[in-house]
Structures are given as C-alpha cells and as structure tokens.
C-alpha cells in the first residue's frame, strides 16, 4: 500500500466508526425513546382511568341531587336551597336553569350584587342543544370549559336534566342542573403523576376537537385547529389523524406553538362518549439523547486524539527511520572507508615487513644491513600488532561486547610498566619526561589492569608521539578520596608541549579513525582508534576523560577514575630511623619524595641542585653525621647526577649509599654511574613501596653494588613444557628460550601435555607454557585435567597461557581454568622472561 494512503484510510476508518457510533446511538436513542413513549402512553392511560373515576365521582354527586330533586317534586328555589345545604365545596357552585328560558338560579350570588342569585345561559351556546345530556346515571354529562356567567370564572359543569315545579302553578318544567367547577381548581389537582413527565400537560377534547379541559400548552379553541396551525398539513390529510386521535389509544409526534417537537399521547375517555384525553410533552423532556451525544463526543474526541497521536508517532518513527537509513548509509560508507583504511594501514607495515625480509635475504652476508632490516621489521611488526589489537578492541567496543575483567593489581607495577614502555620513545625523541606521583597510599587496586594500562598508555604514547623532539611530557598521578565507598579516586594527568589539536578535531576526536589533518601528523604512525578506544574504556569504568588543547602549545588529558581498593595491601612499611637527602631540581618531585620518605619514618632533607647537595653532604660528613642514603636525580642542570656522585664519593667517601633516580632508561649510563659510585637505581616515579624496597635492599649487611641487568644465569637449566600445536610458534618460542639457556619440550596438543605430566617426575619441568586453541584437547581443558592429577607436584605446576586469545575475558577464562599467568601472542621475550622470574620468585617464597 502506498504511504500516502495511510492518512485517507485512517480518516475513512474514523469516519466509518463515527457513523457507526452515530447510527448505533440513534438506534439506542430510538429504542429508549420508544420505551419512554410507551411509558408515557401508559401513564396517559392511567391518567384516563383516574380522570374517569374522578368524573364519574363528580357526576354521581350530580346524579344523586338530580334524583332527589326529581323525586321530591321541588321548585327551583327549593332545589337550590337543598343543594346549597348539601354542597360543601368552597369554590364550586350549582346552577339550575330552565330549558325554555335558559335562565334560572345559582347557589352563589353575583359579586357585585350579593342578593342576586339569578343566572342566564341565554347567550351561552352550551345549553342551546342539550342532547349531549343523557338520562340520570347513564353517562358523564360534562360541558366544555366556559365562562361562568355568575362570576366570570372559566369553569366546567357536570349536568343532569331535571324537572322542577313552578312555584305558582305547580307545573313541572324542564331544567338543567349544572354542578359548576372552576378550572383553576381542577388544574391544581389534575397534573401528570410521574415526576419524569412533569412538563407534560393534559387536555380533554370532544369528538370535534374542542377542548373540554385545556392544558396551558394546548393552543386555540380546538385541538384540531391547534394541530393545523403549527404542523404541516395537506388538505384533508389531518382528518385521518383526528379520527385516529378521537377513536384509539396511541401516540404521535407534533410541533407545539414554540416549534418544539412534542409527543402526543391520546386515549379515549371511555365514560364520556367521543371524548379523548390528550397528553402533550416536548420530546426533549424525554431525556434520551444527552448520553448518546456525550458518547459520540467522547468517541469523536478519542478518535481524533488517537488520529493525531498516531500521526505524530508515525511522523516521529518516519523521522527515526530516515535518520536510521542515513546512519545505515553512513555506517556502510564507514565500513567501506574502514576497509579501505585498514587495507592501507595493514598493507603499509606488511609492505615494510615483506620488503625488508626480501632485502635481508639478499644481503645475508652483510650483518649490519641484516641487523638494520630486522630492527625495522620489528618496528613494522609492532605497529601491525598495535593496529590489529586496536581494530579488535574497537570492534568489540562497537558491538557492545567489551566487558571488564577486574583483578587485583599493583598500581606501582602499572606505573613502572608505563614508564618502561614510554622510555624507548622518550629516549629516541629526546623529550624531557617527568612522571610525578602524589600520595599513592593504596598500592593494590581491583580493576581491569589490561584496560587501565591501555587507557594510560594510549594517552601517554599520544603525548610522546605528538611532541616534537626537545619538547616536554609530564605525567601527574595522584590518589584522592573517592565518593564511592571502598574506592580511591585516581587522577591521571598527561601534559605535553606537542602540536596540540584544533577545536574542530577535538569535537570528533573520540570517533574511530579520527586523525588530525596536519602535515606534521602525517608522518606519525597511528590507527586513529586509540582515543576512541580510550574514551569507551573510561566510560565503561564510569570515569571521565577531559582534554584541554591549544594548537602549537600542547595538550593536557585528564582521566579520573574511581577504582575499588583491593583486599590485599602491603603490610606496614617503616624504615629504621635515619637521615636521607633527596636531590632534585624539580621542586614538586622533591616535595613528593620528602613526604614519601617521611611517611616511611626517616628524616629527609632536600637539595635543589648537585652543588647544594654536595655542600650539605660535606657539612654532615665534617660533623660526623653522614646521611645514610642520598637519593639523587640524574638529570639536573649545572651538575648532573653522575658528576655529583663522583664528587660525593670524592668528598665524603663511600659511607653513604647513593640511589640514582631517573625517569629514563639508564642502560646507557649504567656503567658510568657504577663507576662514579652509585649503589643502585630507582626509576621515577618514587612510590612509597619502591623506595622502601630499594632502601632496604641497599642497606643490607653490606651495601650492594648495582645488580647487573643482563644477568640471566638464574634461568640456566630450567626445563619448560610447551603445549603448542603450531610448528612455527614452537620453533620461535623454543629458539627464544634457548637463547637464555632454557630447555623446552614440546607437547603437540593438550592431551599429550596431560599425558606428559602424568608420566613426569617431580622437578622434570619448572613450568608449562600452554597454548589455548589446540586439536584433540584445548589448553583450558588440559589445565583443568592437570590440576586434577594425583601427584601434588604435577597438579600444582605453574601453567602460563601463551595464546593469541588476548582479550581480558580470555585472561579471566585462563585464570578460572587454573592457570597462573597469561602471555599474549605475538610474544615479547622480555615479558616471557619476566613471567618466568615471577614464577620462580613465587616458588621461592
């Protein structure tokens, strides 16, 4: 059906419904009206019975008098006297009129002549012909309403023919006895009995339509004339109606003098031949229509509201559909753009990997060239990996399947990791890098560490990435009280002096694949997904992310998260009382370090430069109160950390332990520092726990020299079982482990791995690296089986997942299956070694 038909069809349906309601209401109304009319007719019939009884009663009184007068042979005077005595009604009177002269006497005198009882009907036409007066007792003989000639009141009379005797001659004379009742009296009594018909009026008419008794609404002298005056009639046609009215019982409609449609009920008065009782009432007083119109009005209003509502809803949904269509179109276009972008972004590093591999193959003999190619291949691979991870993340975010997997983790480790990850780039770009922490009391928190890392790394790596060499990147992390119970508020602020962002870009920067169009940016690798993912992650963690940026000046990102405090925290950390000197040119870092050290129970002095530190150390040395520990920043103006150490050693000897602090990778300065006399290194930021551990470690029985970072002797002779179905992966991992003197044994799938563990003796394997997706038995099931082995050593052997299933829920799944750690493929050998060492440390403890 065409869309434009919807409205006409609605209107047609509404109209049809309204027509139905109107017709049905009319039908109901008609039925009710018919019932009311029937009731009205019945009431009229009842009134006729009442009237008839009344008339018969009145006539009977008249009959009694007539019989008495006739039986006693009274004169007119005697008859009047007799009636005057027996007549009790105040306003009624009796006339006796001779038929020959139409004059006689009344029981009551005239108003203006108290002694005058005479009465004359000479000019009244009611006694000209007395054939309507029947014999006594035969019928009701009632006159029409007329003007009482004695008092001028409109009256009716009950009559009887009587014989009175002439007082002088004694001759009998024909006369008529009239019992005269004023109409005003009658009208008061003669009202419709039903309250619901209070506006109905009664009349009695004779066979010619003339009123015997006339109700107020009845007009003219004759009902027939009244009917003709106010109702459309053709010549002769009313006659049928009139005959019907005067001969039968029923009802009909007619118009009254006001043009109102009325119901007329009629019934013959049986006791008075030819008379009919009429009752007339306006149709509106039947009171049958109002509810129906209310219903129609209600339905009409309802339909109209429904119509308007439907129309509004339809228009609303149409708009939504249009918007959805536009969105779908945009999504489709986005998909195409995405594929195109992905194709480009994936092909670029792939091109580098394939091209450089080809070049390396051809120059196998040139070690330097191969090394350079391999370094570039590694960079391209890492970029490709980042891209793939981001794509996977954003697809999960957009499909709403990204879930958080909270675990207990150390914020110190997280920050260290963050610093470590950023070091190569900071070093490469020669950027001034500061990482300050403030009041980090709760080391262990309960959150999705992977996602938190992702957020922090994304922001920090962007800051470094978009900061020109020689620029500055500073990170501030502080712990505050949270409004959420059981949580701390962690505020992470990354500021840079980079290229900044335009307001236009900032408006869309959280949308996927948004990258600023800038010639300075084009040379920087990026997927355009980082900020989108970051924003989604922060939202998912109920946090906020805020950005202040100015083009050419720099950007500041602030992430605020309320993170639950983990149940596990470090036990009370207190150092033995001692004097410590902190040396740094950064006043904030200096203050933070002093605060942290004092919270550990030591007395901390501060020095803002190497020279100031030297003076303080010399004074102390001279007074024999050497500082136990000097914590010294490497990069300081004027006199750097290494030179300061050298001079300290020269001035104050080796009694003071010196920790060199740096936010940078110290591998380059390690040898110089050791040579100068440094006892150890501590990376920025200076966590309380880190300082506690480090100071404790250098103040052992004797001050240790710096541990060699490239000493892997502790790994020699380890034997690791690797469950891996893929030959290349097996080859890579076994080769990599071999480089550190670790022996690897392969299990081609989970089942074989379980079998090997069943047959192994205690100590055969240090740990297991377990792939997850394997034929026959996957890694999770194999882990569960191993954990159920009878041999306690076998069932408790450390198992580390080594899988390409890298999402947090995969990690959780592994942990739930009984594994002890997770390493994502492609593997980073540094992480692998770190994990092995962690396992070893745990075993020891």
């Amino acid at each position: 059906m065409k869309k434009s038909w919807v409205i006409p069809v609605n209107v047609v349906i509404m109209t049809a419904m309204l027509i139905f309601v109107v017709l049905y209401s009319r039908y109901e109304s008609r039925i009710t009206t018919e019932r009311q009319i029937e009731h009205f007719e019945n009431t009229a019939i009842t009134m006729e019975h009442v009237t008839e009884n009344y008339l018969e009663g009145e006539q009977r009184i008249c009959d009694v008098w007539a019989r008495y007068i006739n039986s006693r042979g009274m004169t007119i005077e005697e008859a009047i006297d007799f009636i005057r005595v027996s007549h009790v009604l105040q306003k009624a009177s009796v006339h006796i009129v001779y038929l020959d002269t139409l004059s006689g006497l009344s029981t009551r005198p005239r108003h203006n002549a108290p002694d005058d009882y005479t009465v004359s009907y000479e000019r009244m036409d009611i006694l000209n012909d007395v054939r309507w007066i029947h014999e006594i007792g035969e019928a009701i003989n009632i006159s029409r309403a007329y003007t009482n000639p004695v008092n001028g009141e409109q009256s009716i009379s009950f009559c009887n023919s009587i014989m009175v005797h002439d007082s002088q001659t004694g001759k009998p004379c024909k006369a008529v006895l009239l019992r005269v009742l004023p109409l005003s009296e009658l009208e008061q009594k003669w009202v419709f009995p039903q309250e619901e018909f209070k506006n109905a009026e009664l009349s009695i008419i004779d066979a010619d339509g003339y009123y015997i008794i006339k109700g107020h609404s009845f007009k003219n002298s004759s009902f027939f004339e009244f009917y003709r005056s106010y109702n459309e009639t053709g010549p002769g046609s009313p006659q049928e109606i009139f005959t019907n009215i005067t001969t039968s019982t029923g009802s009909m409609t007619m118009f009254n003098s006001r043009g109102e449609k009325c119901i007329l009920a009629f019934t013959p008065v049986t006791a008075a031949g030819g008379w009919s009782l009429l009752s007339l009432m306006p149709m509106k007083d039947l009171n049958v229509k109002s509810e129906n119109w209310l219903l129609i009005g209600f339905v009409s209003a309802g339909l109209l509201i429904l119509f308007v509502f439907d129309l509004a809803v339809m228009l609303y949904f149409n708009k939504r559909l249009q918007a959805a269509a536009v969105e779908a179109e945009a999504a489709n276009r986005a998909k195409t753009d995405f594929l195109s972008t992905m194709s480009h972004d994936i092909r670029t590093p792939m091109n580098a990997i394939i091209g450089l591999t080809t070049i390396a193959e051809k120059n196998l003999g040139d070690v330097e060239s191969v090394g350079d190619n391999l370094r570039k291949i590694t960079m391209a691979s890492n970029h490709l990996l980042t891209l793939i991870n981001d794509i996977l993340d954003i697809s999960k975010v957009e499909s709403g399947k990204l879930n958080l997997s909270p675990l207990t983790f150390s914020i110190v480790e997280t920050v260290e990791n963050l610093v470590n990850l950023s070091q190569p780039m900071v070093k490469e770009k020669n950027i001034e890098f500061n990482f300050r922490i403030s009041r980090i009391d709760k080391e262990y928190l309960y959150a999705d560490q992977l996602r938190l890392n992702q957020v922090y790394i994304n922001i920090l790596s962007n800051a470094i990435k978009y900061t020109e060499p020689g620029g500055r990147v500073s990170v501030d992390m502080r712990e505050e009280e949270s409004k959420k119970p059981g949580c701390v508020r962690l505020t992470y602020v990354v500021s840079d002096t980079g290229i900044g962002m335009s307001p236009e870009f900032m408006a869309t920067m959280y949308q996927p694949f948004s990258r600023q169009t800038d010639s300075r940016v084009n040379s920087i690798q990026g997927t355009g997904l980082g900020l989108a993912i970051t924003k989604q992650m922060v939202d998912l963690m109920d946090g906020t992310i805020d950005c202040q940026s100015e083009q050419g000046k720099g950007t500041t990102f602030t992430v605020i998260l309320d993170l639950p405090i983990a149940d596990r925290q470090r036990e009370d950390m207190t150092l033995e009382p001692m004097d410590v000197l902190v040396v740094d040119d950064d006043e904030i870092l200096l203050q933070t370090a002093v605060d942290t050290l004092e919270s550990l129970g030591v007395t901390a002095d501060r020095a803002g430069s190497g020279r100031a530190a030297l003076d303080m150390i010399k004074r102390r040395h001279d007074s024999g109160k050497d500082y136990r520990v000097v914590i010294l920043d490497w990069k300081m103006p004027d006199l750097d950390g290494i030179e300061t150490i050298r001079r300290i050693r020269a001035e104050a000897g080796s009694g003071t332990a010196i920790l060199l602090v740096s936010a940078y990778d110290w591998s380059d300065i390690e040898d110089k520092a050791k040579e100068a006399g440094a006892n150890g290194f501590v990376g920025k930021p200076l966590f309380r726990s880190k300082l506690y551990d480090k100071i404790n470690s250098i103040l052992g029985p004797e001050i240790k020299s710096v541990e060699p970072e490239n000493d892997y002797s502790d790994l020699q002779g380890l034997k690791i079982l690797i469950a891996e179905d893929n030959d290349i992966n097996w080859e890579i991992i076994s080769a990599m482990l071999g480089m550190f003197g670790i022996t690897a044994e392969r299990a081609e799938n989970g089942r074989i791995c379980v079998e090997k563990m069943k047959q192994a003796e205690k100590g055969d394997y240090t740990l297991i690296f377990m792939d997850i997706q394997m034929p026959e038995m996957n890694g999770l099931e194999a882990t569960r089986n191993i954990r159920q082995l009878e041999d306690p050593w076998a069932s408790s052997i450390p198992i580390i997942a080594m899988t390409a299933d890298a999402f947090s829920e995969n990690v959780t799944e592994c942990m739930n299956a009984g594994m002890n750690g997770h390493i994502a493929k492609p593997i980073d050998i540094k992480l692998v070694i770190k994990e092995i060492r962690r396992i070893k440390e745990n075993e020891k403890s």
Partner: protein
Amino acid sequence: MKKLICIILTLCTLFLLTACSSKQPEESPAAGFKPSLSKDTSCKITVAGSYDNFEALEAEFDKFNEIYPNVRLSYVKLDDYNNVLGTVLEGNDKPNIFFSYTWMTVNEQYHSVFEQMEDLSDSALKLNLDCIRPGLLNRDAQGHVRMVPVFSRTYGMLVNKALFEKEGLSVPTTQSELMAVCEAFRSKGYASPMMGYSLKSSGCFMNTIAYPLFVATLAKNPEALTLANNLDPAAGEYMRPALEAVEKLVGQGCIDIGECDKIEDNYTKVILRFFEGDVPMMICTGDTVSGTKKRESQSEAFTKSPFEYAFTPIALTEEGGYFIDSPSVQFSVNKSCDNLEMTNEFMRFLITNEELNKMASVKRLVTPTKDLSFDSVYAPFGQVPSERTMSPEVLGIKDPISVQIRNAAFQVGKGEITVDEAVKRYGTFE
C-alpha cells in the same frame, strides 16, 4: 502536498464532527427590548378576549417567555364576551389584559369596565404609543389612552393577481377601470367578476362597498354627521352615493347575487371560494383576509394551483378607493389585576413596531403601526393617499350609523328595497 492532504482531511473530520453539534436558535427574542424586571420573576398573566384562537398573541407569549421563562401567559376566550366582561373583571379570575372596543366608550354598561382600564399613556409605563397610527389611538377628554389597538380593520377586496395577469388586465384604480375590468372578465366567461358574502347583513359585501363611501360622504359634510349619529332620517340622503354604488355593481352584472348566496358564511367559505381560483375579486373586510394564510393549505384547489393575491381598496370613485382605518382589536390593562408590573412589562414588550407587525403578519390583519409595507397582501393600502384615509372614530362616527348603512346596503343589494326607500328609512333599520 502530503501535509496539505493531511490538513484538509483533518479539517473535514472536524467539520463532520461539528455536524454533530446542536442547531443554534435562529432568532433571538426581541432584540431591542430591554427587560426592566428580574428575569426570574414567576407569575401568571391572562389575556381575555373574544377570539376563538389567537395564535399571533400566543407566538408573542412564547417570545416573551424567552426573556421571562417563568411567566405563564395564557389567552382565554370568554363566552358572551361583551356581556360577561364586566362580571369577569369583578370576579376571582380577573384577566390582566382584555379586549376592548371603541364602541364601549359610549355605552353606559361598560362604565365599570372603563373604571378598570389603566391609563396606558402614563409615561411611567414607557409604552411606545408613537408607533401606532394616530387615527387609531382613542384618547378620552383628559388625553388618557385606555385602549391600545393591536389590529385595525378596513374594507376592500381580495384580488387574484394571477387571473388579472392571465387575462391581460390590470387591477382597477378608478371606478371606470373597475367597471371596464368587470366587463372584460364577464366577456371572458366569468359569471361574477366580483363576489362576496350576501346571505346575512352581518358581514355582507354590500356593507363593505357602502360603508367607506358613506363615511367619506359624512366626512365631506360635517353637518350631516350629527344628523347621522342622531339617526335623523334627514341624514338618509347622505347614504345615497353609497347605496347607488352597490346597486350599480349588482345591476351592471359585476356581482352575481345568486353566486354570492352560495357562500355559506362570511369568513371560511368566502376564503375557500376565493381560493378556488376563478374569482377575480372577492369583496370582504380585513378580518376575513386574516384567515387566508391558514386556509391556503386547507384549500385543495389553492394547494394544487397556488396564486398570488392582494387586498386592495375598492375603486368606487374616479379618484380611487378609500382606506377606512379603524381599530379592530384593542388591548386594555386591568389595573386591579394581579402582577400588574409584569403585565405592563408585557405591554411594553408588545407595543412596538416589530412585535405588532409580527402579530399582524401571523394573524394577517392590518397592523396598527405606521408601516404597512411589510405584508404584501396589505401593501396597496399603504399607498392610499392621506386625503382618502379616514378613521371613523376620529370623525366621530358612532356605532348606530354602521347598523343603518349595513342594513340599507344589504337590502338594496339584495333588491329588497330601492335606494330611495332605503334613504327614507334611515334611522329605522335594526
């Protein structure tokens, strides 16, 4: 386009819904009338009269009830009105308003009735008597107005305009034209171009022809008026022109008495005979014309072939006809009635151009107001110049004169006596 269709259909729906609403009243009650009493006043007002039916007045009752819904107004016909009126006014059932006639002023019997009449010229009542034609207002020696005419009576003939048009003739405006028209109609086969009631003297056509001429003659001869009022036989001579006119019309075949005698009464039968459609001119009074409207539907012939008609003066002189303007029905207020304030309020409502004209229009009687043009049937009388408009009451013509001229004209018209005999017998007709 779609929005337009939507709006149109919605409007249509609303329009259909408005069809469900009730009809607005077509007419508001007397727009110019400002009620002076509380509209909630509840009382009863009775108008007593001699008419069997008074629908025109009842229509006014209904209109008055739209302003004062709780006032119960009714019209009562009194039997033997003229004789019983005095008794009624003294009785328990006193009417508030009653019919009164000019002739009552000179009749001793109605002295007590006059005593009961309120002075309607009292400025406190604020009745708009200026709307009445001055010739119709009867003032006593003190200038009081005890009766206000609600209808006036005149004499003339109903003209079947369709027949005139059909035969190519014009309605006559002079005596010679009248004779010529009658001749023309007769030649076209109309046995009696003019007709009227002729069975009894009361209401007979002869009086309708003769009375205006006699009044005109008396008006021209003031000295004769006293003689005529005193029924002096000497005044008989002044009847001659009127009687000769009757004789001439009958004698020259303008009126066929035989045909006229077939009309059984001077009201309904006269009208129904006229509605048969073959009578060019029907001589009658305005009272008879009042019954025409209602009887249009009662006449089979008229229903089948309706035609246009008018009531015009009978052109009995070369100058034209006369407009005898005399009150028909007058209202008097019973000053000792109950609810006198509301009674006067009703009179104030009724005595206006609008209401009197409306009542005259319903009743189809001549209005007593100055505007006659509103009813096309009576419009020709509005064009009669003032010199031929006469009010017998103003002239001082008393009721006995009417009896003399009526009987004389009737008998002359019937051929029972000659004009000379009639002239001689002035003052003796009963």
